[in-house]
């Protein structure tokens, strides 16, 4: 039946090229997602002792620096507030009225 089957229909333009492109896409390796890359990195690279120690040390250094900077800012703010308060208490023209 196949031998007897004939068709006059013509192929659409660039049909062969399209077929080969689809085959190439299907065979191309799938790019891993960002999360998969991160998970892979955490699972395989991070546990290396040198890297793990560096990672923890860097995060501790960041914590110390940010803590110190914010504490410095807060202390300066409190000192400034108290110095102004001292002046306000002594100066009748600035003293808070009840």
């Amino acid at each position, binding site marked *: 039946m196949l031998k007897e089957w004939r068709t006059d229909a013509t192929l659409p333009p660039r049909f062969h090229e399209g077929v080969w492109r689809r085959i190439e896409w299907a065979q191309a390796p799938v790019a891993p997602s960002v999360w998969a890359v991160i*998970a892979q*990195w*955490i*699972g*395989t*690279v*991070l*546990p290396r002792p040198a890297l*793990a120690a560096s*990672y*923890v040390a*860097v*995060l*501790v*250094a*960041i*914590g*110390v620096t*940010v*803590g*110190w900077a*914010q*504490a*410095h800012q*807060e*202390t300066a703010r*409190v*000192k400034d507030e*108290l*110095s102004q*308060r*001292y*002046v306000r*208490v*002594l*100066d*009748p*023209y600035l*003293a808070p*009225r009840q």
Partner: protein
Amino acid sequence: MKRGGFILVLGLVAAAAAYGCVYLACTSSARSFQRSEKPELAWLKVEFNLSDAEFKRVSELHAAYLPKCREMCTQIDVQNSKLQKLLAAATDVSPEIERELAESSRLRTECQTMMLRHFFQVSQTMPPEQGRRYLSWVKEKTFLPDYGMPKE
């Protein structure tokens, strides 16, 4: 993955702990100021390195000055309200307004003299170098050229 995740979390926890420890340690002086009965005097003690004896004397001077300051505040308020009443009804500078303006000036002079006297007394209680620093700071804060003028 399990070990990597543990290290990841350990790093974050260590960073948070380091932040908290440093922040709490470095703000302990500020917190102790705020906890004290008179925070502004606690600040003064630390800022000008006062010994306990010097601080006691400064606190006594401070306590003795406050009633005089309150009395001056009352006089200033009375004088201001008198002047405001006159100014509200005035269309020109009357002799009465002139008199009240002069009285306001006299009050301001009296107030500044009283303050300055107190500042000198306090500075003399401190070690000489700190006393000079205190005087320079407090004069700058209370006797600036734009004293009493609103900031733009």
